[in-house]
C-alpha cells in the first residue's frame, strides 16, 4: 500500500514522515512480534556468520565472541594447513563420492516409486504402501543405525547368523566395518529411508496430468509401458528438473536425503575410516573434539562456499531452463 496523497516540498516531507510514524505506531504490536523474530535471527543466525572471520584468525575459545574480532589475523594459514593435511585427498574424495552416489541413486528412486504407485488401481493398497513408505523418514538415523546393527553386525546381526546357520558363508560379513562396503551401504540406507517421502512430490505431479491423455492413448492402442513413457514421464518432467536442481544445490550435504554427516558419524568407525571420513565429520573432530576452532571453521567455510556457488548456479540454470527458481 502506498501513501495516499503525493505531496511536494519540505512541509510535504515532514507530513509524509508524520504519516509514516502514525502508521508505524498503529502497527507497533506487529512490529514487536516481528522484532522478536529479528532479534532471534540476529543472535542465532547472523552472529555466527560474523564468526566466519575466525577462519582467518588465530582464535581461542576463551576469548568468547569478542575474541572473533580482537584475535590476531593469520590470513590463509588454516586453509593451507588443510590442503596440506595428509588426509586431505581422502576426505575430499569420500565427500564427493558419497554425494554423487546419492544423486545417482537417491534422486531417481522416488521417481520410479511414484510411477509404480500411479500404476496401482487398488486405492487401499496404494494408500497402505504410501503410508508405510513414509515411516523411515520420521525415524532418526540413530535408530536406523541401530536397526542396521541388529541385522548386519558381525556378532549379533540376524542376517549374518542366518547365513552362517545355512552354511552359505563361513565367516560373518563385516558390512558395517569393512571400508569397501561403506559407500554402498550409506547410499542404500539413504534410499531406503527417504525414497517414500520424496515420492509425495512426484505423485502430485502425476496427479496433475490430464486423464484424457491416457484415454486417448489407450484408444490409439498404446500399452501400459508406452503410456508411462509418453505421458506419465513427460508430465513429471518439470517437477523432475526442479527437484534435480534442488538436489545439486545441496549435494555436499547428501542432496535431498541430506544425511552425509549423520551417516558418516554413525556408521563410521576406526576400521572403515578410509572411506567414511568426510569433510563435515573431520571438521567436527578437529573443531569441537580437539578444540582447534579456527582450523575447523576454515574447513567448514570451504564447504559452505562450494555449497553457495552450487546453490546460485543451479538456481541460475533453473531460471533459464524451467522458469522456476528459488530466489
Amino acid at each position: 500500500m502506498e501513501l495516499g496523497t503525493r505531496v511536494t516540498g519540505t512541509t510535504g516531507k515532514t507530513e509524509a514522515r508524520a504519516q509514516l510514524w502514525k502508521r508505524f505506531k498503529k502497527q507497533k504490536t506487529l512490529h514487536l512480534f516481528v522484532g522478536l523474530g529479528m532479534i532471534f535471527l540476529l543472535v542465532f543466525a547472523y552472529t555466527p556468520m560474523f564468526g566466519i572471520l575466525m577462519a582467518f584468525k588465530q582464535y581461542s575459545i576463551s576469548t568468547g565472541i569478542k575474541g572473533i574480532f580482537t584475535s590476531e589475523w593469520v590470513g590463509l594459514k588454516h586453509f593451507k594447513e588443510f590442503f596440506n593435511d595428509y588426509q586431505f585427498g581422502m576426505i575430499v574424495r569420500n565427500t564427493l563420492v558419497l554425494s554423487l552416489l546419492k544423486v545417482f541413486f537417491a534422486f531417481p528412486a522416488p521417481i520410479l516409486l511414484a510411477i509404480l504407485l500411479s500404476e496401482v488401481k487398488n486405492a487401499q493398497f496404494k494408500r497402505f504402501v504410501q503410508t508405510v513408505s513414509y515411516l523411515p523418514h520420521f525415524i532418526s538415523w540413530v535408530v536406523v543405525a541401530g536397526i542396521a546393527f541388529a541385522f548386519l553386525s558381525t556378532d549379533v546381526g540376524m542376517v549374518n547368523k542366518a547365513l552362517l546357520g545355512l552354511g552359505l558363508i563361513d565367516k560373518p560379513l563385516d558390512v558395517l566395518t569393512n571400508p569397501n562396503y561403506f559407500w554402498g551401504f550409506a547410499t542404500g540406507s539413504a534410499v531406503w529411508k527417504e525414497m517414500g517421502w520424496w515420492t509425495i512430490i512426484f505423485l502430485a505431479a502425476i496427479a496433475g496430468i490430464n486423464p484424457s491423455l491416457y484415454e486417448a492413448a489407450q484408444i490409439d492402442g498404446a500399452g501400459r509401458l508406452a503410456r508411462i513413457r509418453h505421458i506419465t514421464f513427460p508430465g513429471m518432467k518439470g517437477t523432475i528438473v526442479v527437484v534435480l536442481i534442488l538436489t545439486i544445490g545441496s549435494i555436499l550435504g547428501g542432496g535431498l536425503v541430506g544425511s552425509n554427516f549423520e551417516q558418516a558419524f554413525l556408521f563410521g568407525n576406526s576400521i572403515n575410516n578410509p572411506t567414511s571420513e568426510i569433510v563435515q565429520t573431520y571438521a567436527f573432530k578437529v573443531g569441537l573434539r580437539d578444540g582447534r576452532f579456527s582450523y575447523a571453521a576454515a574447513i567448514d567455510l570451504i564447504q559452505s562456499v562450494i555449497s553457495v556457488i552450487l546453490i546460485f548456479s543451479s538456481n541460475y540454470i533453473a531460471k533459464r531452463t524451467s522458469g522456476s527458481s528459488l530466489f
Partner: protein
Amino acid sequence: MQLSQKQKDRFMDVLVYALLAILTLSMLYPFYYVLILSFNKGTDSLLGGVYLWPRTFTFENYARFLDDPHWYRAFLVTIMRTLAGTALGVLFTCLVAYGLSHRDLLFRKSYFTVIIFAMYFSGGLIPYYVVLRSVGLLNTFGVYVIPSILSTFFLLIAISFFREIPSELKESAHMDGAGELVIFYRIMLPVSMPLIATMSLFLGVGQWNSWLDSAYFVQSEGLRTLAFRMMEVINKSNAPMDAIAVANSASAGVTSYSLQVAAMVISIAPIVCVYPFLQRFFIQGIMLGSVKG
C-alpha cells in the same frame, strides 16, 4: 511367442504389485524385527534364530530400561524437550509469522530479506558453538529449546497460511477493540489447526530424534537425550566387541544390546502412533513448501 496387449498389461500389474509388496515388506519387517527382539530375553536373542515372534517372551528389557537411571533420565529429558521445544517453536514461529502476514506492514521487504538470507546462509557449526557458549546456553536444557524456537522454513509456510484466512475475521475483532495479541491467539491460532498440526509433527519429530545437539553442546550426563544414548551404544558396539562378554555381565537375561533394542522401540513407538493420522496435513505441507521453495 507374441503376447497380446491385454496379457502384457496383466503381466505389468503382477510385476507392479510384486515390487511394491517387496518394498513394503522391506520397510516394515525391520521395525517388526526390533519389536519382537525387544520382547525376547536378551541372552536368548544373542543365539540368533528369532525371526517372526519372540522365542522366550519377557518384559524384562523394558523393566530394566525404566530402572536404569541413565536410560530413564534420557527418556524424561527427551519427553520434556519435545513438549517444550514443539510448543514454544509453534507459538513463536506463528507469532512472528502473524506479524509478517500483514501485507501493509512497514519495512516488510527488509524483514523478508533478513529471513531469506538467514535461510540460505549460515556461519557453520564452529561459530554457532561460540555463540551458544557466549549466551550461556552450553550445557543447559535451554540449548535444546531456545535455538530452535524459530524455524525459517515454517515461518514462510505460516505466513502464506495466515494470508489465506479471511481478513473479515480480524477486522470484526478490531472493531470490538481486541489487541493484536488477543486476535492472534483467540482467532488466528484456532482457525490454523492444519498448520499447527503439520508444524507440531515436524518440530516434534525433530526434537524427539535429535542427538547432534546433545553430542555437540552438552557434557552433563543428566541432560543426555534418548537418541544420544542410543548413539553412544552404537558407537561403542561399532568397534568389534565381544558379545559373550556382554552376555556374561547381563542380569535377568538383559544385555546391553537388548536394552538398546527396547530403547529403539520406545523411540519409534510414538512416531508410529502419530504420523499416519497427520498424513493429510503433512502432504499439504510438503507441497506448499516445495511450491514456495
